[in-house]
């Protein structure tokens, strides 16, 4: 005899209670295995904190050209190009070294939320409120209006496309996350869905999925972050269920990013914390959080790891961009406006790039490291992309702002090249060693002045 609806509702209520009870037991067991976190372990090993000098990380250039909020950016895997997406309805492809715009792609739908470069750099993908992921081939001829045509539209999501990423080393497959609570693996050649992860009546996220990150060491594994406060690990060969669900956050998980070793991943959430999880055991290894007093807790909107994993860059809804030491997770102190005076003291573990000169004015929505890990680019609601290049590589203290007009690209190229050569930014110009010498001298003089003054005061009666 089949069950009635009321009996089913009773079974439903009982099942919810069982699920909650099992989750609580699992939480208790996991708690017993958390004998130490990464910071505790690193302190016990006597790890020294990372210290930045006042000129080690400087904002090198601002990429100006978008007329609306910048929502997403992605680097190529080589050749130092960046694609950015803005709600002015355009994707712009930038040459990161020269700040020139190589493509300005008008989108069929202005409400774009994500963009990605293909591994070969020949295509870009984007998606947004139109629920479609659009692919553009950068080598295609433009149409009669001068616009780059869409080469493929990936339709099938029942909600907005929040994030997309190409499968590493495969220009033909990408993964999207969506407000319809699913992630989808697409075959771009056919435009069809290869696999759907989650969804109604499937075991998956129970709210909008906001972010995906594919493992660089095993491209079959990816993680997703959702408004249901969890992150989930998926195997692309098994779409019926997540490999593991990661609990801990107390708000929407806005961003997820694999750790460089491929066995851990980081998350950023509306609860103001970033966390590090282990994919094999499910352990929460570290929480990165700074007290903000009585002020409203800023949400973490985007994260990225440096190439070694030692640094975790986190963008927040209040425009801050913190640089966390992933090993020590300490909140340090620094001298404030790094650009305004050059103290000889080494900066502490956490650096707030938001306090630098020429920092963003609005919420940081996206950030990403270049493939070689030497440059960080941040995007913001103030419509600019800002690029910081480590001074260790390029030794630039000056701020260079180039607003190359797209129409006069050819004319400006010569001006840009000469500016860059002067500051030693062009490869092979040999300018780096000159700027290195002068910067060292300036720092030495400032140090000397400070120490002498301190000595004099110390000796005063």
């Amino acid at each position, binding site marked *: 005899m089949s069950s009635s609806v009321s009996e089913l509702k009773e079974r439903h209520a009982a099942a919810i209670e069982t699920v909650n009870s099992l989750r609580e*037991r699992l939480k208790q*067991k996991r708690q017993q295995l958390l004998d130490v976190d*990464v910071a505790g372990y690193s302190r016990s090993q006597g790890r020294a904190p990372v210290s930045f000098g006042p000129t080690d990380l400087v904002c090198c250039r601002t990429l100006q050209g978008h007329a609306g909020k910048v929502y997403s950016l992605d680097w190529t895997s080589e050749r130092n190009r960046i694609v950015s997406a803005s709600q002015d309805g355009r994707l712009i492809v930038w040459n990161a070294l020269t700040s020139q715009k190589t493509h300005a792609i008008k989108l069929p739908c202005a409400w774009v939320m994500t963009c990605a470069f293909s591994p070969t750099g020949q295509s870009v993908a984007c998606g947004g409120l139109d629920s479609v992921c659009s692919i553009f081939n950068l080598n295609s001829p433009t149409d009669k209006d001068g616009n780059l045509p869409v080469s493929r539209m990936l339709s099938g999501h029942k909600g907005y496309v929040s994030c997309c990423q190409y499968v590493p080393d495969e220009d033909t497959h990408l993964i999207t996350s969506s407000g319809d609570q699913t992630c989808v693996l697409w075959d771009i050649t056919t435009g069809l869905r290869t696999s759907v992860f989650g969804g109604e009546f499937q*075991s998956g996220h129970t709210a909008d999925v906001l972010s995906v990150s594919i493992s660089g060491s095993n491209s079959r594994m990816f993680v997703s972050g959702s408004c249901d406060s969890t992150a989930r690990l998926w195997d692309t060969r098994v779409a019926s269920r997540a490999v593991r669900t990661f609990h801990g956050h107390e708000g929407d998980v806005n961003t997820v990013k694999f750790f460089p070793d491929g066995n851990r991943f980081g998350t950023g959430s509306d609860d103001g914390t970033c966390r590090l999880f282990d994919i094999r055991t499910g352990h929460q290894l570290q929480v990165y959080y700074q*007290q903000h007093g009585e002020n409203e807790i800023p949400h973490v909107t985007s994260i990225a790891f440096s190439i070694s994993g030692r640094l975790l860059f986190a963008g927040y809804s209040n425009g801050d961009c913190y640089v966390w030491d992933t090993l020590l997770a300490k909140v340090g102190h620094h001298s404030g406006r790094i650009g305004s005076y050059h103290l000889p003291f080494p900066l502490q573990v956490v650096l707030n790039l938001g306090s630098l000169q020429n920092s963003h004015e609005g919420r940081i929505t996206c950030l990403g490291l270049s493939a070689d*890990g030497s440059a960080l680019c941040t995007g913001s609601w103030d419509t600019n992309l800002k690029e910081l290049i480590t*001074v260790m590589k390029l030794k630039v203290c000056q701020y260079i702002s180039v607003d190359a007009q797209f129409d006069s690209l050819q004319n400006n190229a010569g001006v840009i090249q000469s500016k860059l050569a002067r500051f030693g930014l062009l490869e092979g110009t040999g300018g780096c060693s000159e700027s290195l010498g002068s910067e060292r001298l300036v720092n030495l003089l400032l140090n000397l002045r400070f120490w002498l003054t301190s000595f004099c005061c110390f000796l005063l009666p």
Partner: protein
Amino acid sequence: PSLPPPCPKSPPEYPDLYGKRRELAKVQVLEREISFLEEELKTVDRFHPASRSCKEVADFVVAKSDPLIPVNRKNRRSCRFWKWLCGTPCFNFSWLSWICCCCYSKCSIHIELPRCCDCSDCSICCCRPCTCCSIPKCCCKSNCLNCSCKRNCCTCNPCSLFF
């Protein structure tokens, strides 16, 4: 004779198949989740403790070179110098406080500095903690002449003028 008023019949009670199927599907999803959780409970006992994962993270990070991590050998010499100069506690002398206006607590050079502002005497203080260094700052009100505040951080004018 007038006809009786129309009295349409109620539609027959069809079985609520749509609602029943949805409920059944929801129950099946939950029962599947229960089996996943029971499976995970069995396997979690076999996991190693977090310290092993922490070691793996630390070993990986330390072994890999990173262009964004500065290699600064000069810090060690300046650290020892400042430790000698400052002692413990550092800068209790108020006449030195104008040199150092922001606090470095637990920093590698162990300078304990006075706070940016003693808010008990400052009639224009709002005393919200600094978002960068957790120090009560002099003020963040727009007409404050003594402090320049950006993102709730205090930079004391005597120091910035000096430098």
